[in-house]
């Protein structure tokens, strides 16, 4: 089956002014790989500051002007150029953003979703979509600030679902929601995937990713370090020491902290970004580390756990 989205060796960097007119190039994402099949939910898990949101912006072609993107993105079998991204976004490819700040604060929800269209067919179509997400007619007359966190999230998903997309990119869809509201929101994403769309779920919450995703890609300081089946986590079939540490840090799994802090963007060299905190690190970990297939997943580690290369 042809994948919906295939990202190969993507890197994103920024040009910044350091002092006066001196420019520096800041590599925020490097060597990123990602594949999403139809009907599949793929979670990208990483801590804040690891470059997750930039990945979404890169795919949608909405990176700021001082950024550079290299690598290969294929969407529905064809290369995704800037021009094509502009054509398909909002239609075949949609973003469910983090929060209400992405809505126009001065426009009521109804007219905002309809993009100003007033004809009865459009109105009926949106009414139907909002209904499906449990949003009554009164919601259309509310302004974004009047929505609760859970309602806002459903409005954003409704906008996305209305376009009948092939790819849904969800950026941190659940923080601030209580367990019940969060599981309802996740149910909506599952429905979209069951309808044949691919879902890219970007989150810092491993637990959430494991409850809904089929595949999990782990991101650390701008680098993909592991790709695994969601089931690999509970089965203890993890490959990278960071992924293992992440799993062991869950409150129900030992709550084990490790010292140190993640490197900032562009602070690491060519080597493994986790090496400064890794107990198994050796000198060669600071050199180039390839991203290799291992045991049904992929890993970027010279000495991966539990497997022969």
């Amino acid at each position, binding site marked *: 089956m042809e994948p919906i989205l295939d990202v190969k060796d993507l890197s994103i960097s920024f040009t910044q002014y350091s002092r006066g007119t001196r420019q520096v190039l800041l590599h925020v994402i490097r060597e990123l790989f990602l594949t999403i099949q139809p009907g599949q939910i793929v979670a990208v898990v990483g*801590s804040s*500051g690891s470059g997750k949101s930039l990945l979404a912006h890169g795919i949608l072609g909405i990176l700021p002007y001082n950024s550079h993107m290299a690598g290969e993105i294929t969407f529905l079998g064809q290369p995704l150029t800037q021009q094509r991204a502009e054509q398909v976004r909002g239609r075949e490819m949609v973003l469910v953003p983090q929060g209400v700040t992405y809505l126009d604060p001065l426009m009521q929800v109804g007219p905002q979703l309809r993009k100003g269209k007033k004809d009865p067919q459009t109105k009926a179509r949106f009414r139907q979509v909002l209904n499906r997400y449990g949003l009554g007619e009164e919601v259309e007359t509310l302004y974004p600030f009047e929505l609760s966190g859970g309602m806002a999230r459903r409005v954003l998903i409704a906008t996305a679902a209305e376009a009948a997309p092939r790819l849904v990119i969800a950026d941190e869809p659940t923080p601030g929601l209580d367990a019940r509201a969060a599981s309802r929101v996740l149910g909506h994403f599952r429905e979209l995937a069951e309808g044949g769309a691919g879902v890219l779920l970007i989150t810092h919450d491993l637990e959430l990713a494991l409850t809904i995703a089929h595949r999990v890609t782990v991101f650390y300081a701008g680098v993909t370090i592991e790709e695994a089946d969601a089931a690999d986590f509970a089965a203890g079939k993890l490959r990278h020491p960071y992924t293992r540490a992440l799993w062991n840090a869950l409150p129900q799994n030992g709550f084990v902290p490790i*010292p140190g802090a993640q490197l900032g963007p562009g602070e690491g060299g060519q080597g493994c970004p986790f090496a400064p905190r890794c107990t198994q690190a050796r000198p060669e970990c600071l050199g180039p580390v390839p991203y290799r297939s291992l045991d049904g997943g992929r890993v970027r580690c010279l000495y991966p756990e539990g497997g022969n290369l």
Partner: protein
Amino acid sequence: MSLEGMGLTFGYRGKGKKGVLDHVDLCLEPGERLGLSGPSGRGKTTLCKLLSGYERPDKGRVLVDGKPLGEYKGLCPVQMIWQHPETAVDPLMKLGDTLREGGPVEEGLLEALHIQPAWLDRYPTELSGGELQRFCIARALRPGVKYLLCDEITAMLDLITQAQMWSFLLEQAERRQLGLLIVSHNSALLERLCTRIQPL
């Protein structure tokens, strides 16, 4: 000796007749770790704001070791750590200045929180949420503080940083005999951390 909220009733102005809190009682002893859970919109953050003096209750009172909270001068013995650290620091101040604003920082605290010296010269937008939250915790841990209210302080952090922050805070609470009020949606986290859990 305890932080007591008695019959706390509160509503935000202009939000209609229905208040947020209605006769809520809460008691936190030194050295205790009390978990507070409940769905969104139930008033968990509001309760923290009342207990730390950011808002005054419409009815009821807050006593710290038997004395009304409003009678304490200078440093408030009840400090709150907020859910969104980026909204709890001055965006136009370097973090080193933000930290010094509350007085000298204790020796070894920055190292224990893994705050790198270079971060002190940065502005809040130049650090991630997890990095900022470390500063907010360092700022709250002053001598004289007896109770810490932790409002979803690790909800936006990755798991490793979350475990790191809590192992640090539990150790500090133990050493200083602090009372901790821990607000979270994550029941596994509350069960791990708390000596007692009170639903709101």
